């Protein structure tokens, strides 16, 4: 495969079967490996689509500054794109995210504004919105509400999956900005009657949820729950266990959110098996495990790893 430059190599990722983790020949899991993207995560799609849309809308010209609330993957994608397209980037990020993220962002030339750990990504979004209001010339692409985020998946991820797995019965992905599920979900529902679109959501430790009033919560503007069939909450313990199983059973070194989607995927497979129904379940693996090594997720006992993730935004 040959591309004129790195941005042309976004997407087109492989769909890899999980024959050892899948419960039986009638219920198969298929992993879409999004680490095979230019900066190593699914976010390259959303970032490229959002930047392209902003350029088309005349919001961006060389030398412009982009501001974004991001715990890392979107920031890293944007940092690479900004470098190549000539924009400056400021990321607002919770202070309790892994060291590799800071290193990667700074390496690409991005600046970072840290928001307090307590309050997690909610706080990063709040801080970013405030900074955007104070600096009207900065462009905030705002991944949580930008339709180009979901559209990236409607136009690329969904069609790729369908081309590789026309017999798909379920699609499982992590729920963060909700872009992947909204875009891929909408596309697949249009093309495959009866397909199930399932969200796997990380369940964090108490510090992340903080002590804020329940009325100050946050639901991404992109989120439309009519696109989903169901939504699972997955603990750090289960996510870690599955992430390690991906390595030991299938040889796939994935990030911790992959453990979430595999856990939900396996629950769906078990349900189908019990009902005597065929299942071909595509699970989206958002990134590889490199950025999470320093969290200790892949070493020591599961209990030790779980304890280390307490208070962290681990997915």
């Amino acid at each position, binding site marked *: 495969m040959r591309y004129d430059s790195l941005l042309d190599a976004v997407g087109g990722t492989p769909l890899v079967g999980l024959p050892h983790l899948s419960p039986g020949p009638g219920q198969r899991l298929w992993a879409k490996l999004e680490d095979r993207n230019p900066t190593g995560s699914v*976010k390259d799609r959303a970032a490229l689509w959002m930047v392209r849309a902003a350029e088309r809308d005349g919001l961006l010209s060389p030398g412009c500054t982009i501001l974004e609330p991001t715990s890392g993957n979107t920031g890293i994608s944007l940092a690479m794109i900004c470098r190549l397209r000539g924009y400056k980037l400021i990321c607002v990020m919770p202070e309790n995210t892994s060291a590799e993220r800071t290193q990667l962002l700074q390496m690409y030339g991005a600046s970072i504004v840290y928001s307090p750990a307590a309050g997690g990504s909610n706080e990063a979004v709040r801080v970013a919105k405030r900074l955007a209001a104070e600096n009207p010339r900065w462009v905030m692409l705002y991944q949580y509400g930008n339709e180009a985020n979901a559209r990236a998946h409607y136009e690329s991820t969904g069609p790729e999956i369908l081309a590789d797995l026309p017999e798909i019965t379920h699609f499982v992905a992590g729920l963060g900005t909700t872009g992947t599920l909204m875009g891929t979900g909408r596309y697949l529902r249009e093309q495959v009657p009866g397909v199930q679109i399932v969200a796997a959501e990380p369940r964090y430790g108490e510090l992340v*949820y903080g002590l804020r*009033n*329940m009325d100050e*919560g*946050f639901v991404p503007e992109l989120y439309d729950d009519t696109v989903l069939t169901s939504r*699972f909450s997955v603990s750090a313990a289960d996510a870690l266990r599955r992430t390690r199983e991906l390595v030991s059973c299938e040889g796939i070194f994935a990030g911790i959110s992959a453990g979430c989607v595999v856990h939900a995927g396996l629950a769906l497979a078990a349900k189908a098996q019990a009902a005597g129904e065929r299942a071909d379940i595509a699970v989206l693996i958002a990134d590889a495990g490199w950025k999470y090594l320093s969290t200790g997720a892949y070493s020591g006992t599961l209990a030790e790893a779980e304890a280390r993730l307490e208070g962290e935004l681990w997915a």
Partner: protein
Amino acid sequence: MAIEVRIPTILRTFTGGAKSVEGSGDTLDELIADLDSRHAGLRERLVDDSGLRRFVNIYLNDEDVRFLGGLTATVKDGDTVTVLPAVAGGMA
């Protein structure tokens, strides 16, 4: 009959600091009413006129109840219900 209900930090003022409480009922709505009878004011934090409050997520055996019928979702002995505030997506 016992259904375990896990309570987020912010709502533990209603449960005397308890991380989880037990209740009974055939539906989520009944369960919440049952809890409210012993922990006054809890229901109001979870439910408003239109149903489950917007920034409150409730999971029945780890599944979001909004896809299981919301307040009409069936609950039974041995189930676990988890209440959490809605937060921004993690590593986005």
